[in-house]
């Protein structure tokens, strides 16, 4: 009998701190699989951000630097410029990347830094207890939008992948989800593609992954997983938005 599914090498064999059903664990695994596939583990420098993503170094068996809130793309820029032969990826949530780190992500993307950004969008600040994020959907209740997000007061959820796709410096940008086996297989494919862009030195690559946050959404894992498809995928359309090299 042959083992047909196993833990990727780049992912440590440890228990994670993620809540039951949280997609972070799944996304971690997909990233680790992509590192394995391209044989990148030994030359990768991971850039951790602030939020539930901060413990990247506990879960990935790679060199990691932990960065201030939102600054991961700037730190990644410094790492990659100083060590161009390394493989550099950031792993950031929506609060980190789309609010406090807006300037850093836009300009790293616009410079076409040869890095890969994994953007986990769960429409909330998970680590701090479920506050409103830039990607919180209209009407969504959070601990700081208790009456539901209203566009008149809080603006609209930011579609980051579309925003970045408009920049000349961006070589590859896609939005994916891991809520169904079909979406998950596509997410796997797009993450690998994004990595391939960097491996081939083809410039800035970006993959948004829609994620659940059962605890802060006040749902069980299965309900939260369903919400990703029912509500998030409606507003945040899945797909490849930019693919300059046509890999």
């Amino acid at each position, binding site marked *: 009998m042959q083992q047909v599914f196993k833990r990727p090498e780049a992912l440590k064999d440890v228990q994670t701190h993620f809540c039951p*059903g949280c997609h972070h664990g799944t996304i971690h695994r997909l990233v680790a699989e992509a590192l394995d596939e391209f044989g990148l583990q030994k030359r990768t420098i991971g850039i951790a951000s602030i939020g539930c993503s901060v413990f990247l170094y506990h879960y990935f068996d790679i060199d990691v630097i932990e960065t201030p809130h939102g600054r991961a793309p700037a730190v990644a820029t410094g790492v990659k410029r100083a060590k161009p032969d390394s493989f550099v990826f950031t792993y950031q949530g929506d609060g980190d990347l789309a609010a406090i780190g807006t300037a850093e992500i836009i300009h790293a993307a616009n410079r076409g830094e040869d890095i890969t950004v994994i953007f986990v969008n769960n429409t909330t600040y998970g680590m701090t207890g479920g506050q409103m994020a830039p990607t919180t959907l209209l009407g969504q209740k959070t601990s700081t939008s208790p009456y539901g997000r209203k566009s008149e007061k809080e603006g609209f959820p930011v579609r980051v992948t579309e925003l970045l796709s408009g920049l000349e410096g961006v070589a590859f940008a896609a939005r994916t989800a891991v809520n169904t086996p079909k979406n998950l297989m596509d997410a796997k494919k797009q993450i690998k593609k994004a990595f391939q862009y960097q491996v081939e030195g083809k410039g800035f690559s970006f993959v948004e992954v829609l994620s659940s946050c059962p605890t802060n959404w006040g749902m069980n894992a299965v309900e939260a997983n369903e919400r990703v498809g029912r509500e998030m995928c409606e507003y945040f359309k899945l797909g490849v938005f930019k693919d300059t090299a046509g890999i």
Partner: protein
Amino acid sequence: MPKIEIDELRCKGCGLCATVCPKKCIVLSEQINNLGYTIAVLDEAGGACVGCALCAEMCPDVAILVFK
């Protein structure tokens, strides 16, 4: 015969595996692991596992290994 192994120390009982099993052969048990989660188990009685690995793909905790 294809089979899965669910690591009872890693399973958090989220149940996502059960939602995608085409043969409906994974169930949430009453068994509680060291973290206090009620864990998912293969319903041996079903015996219908085809080793498709969809459960393992969906598992956020890499708690499922698949053999075929």
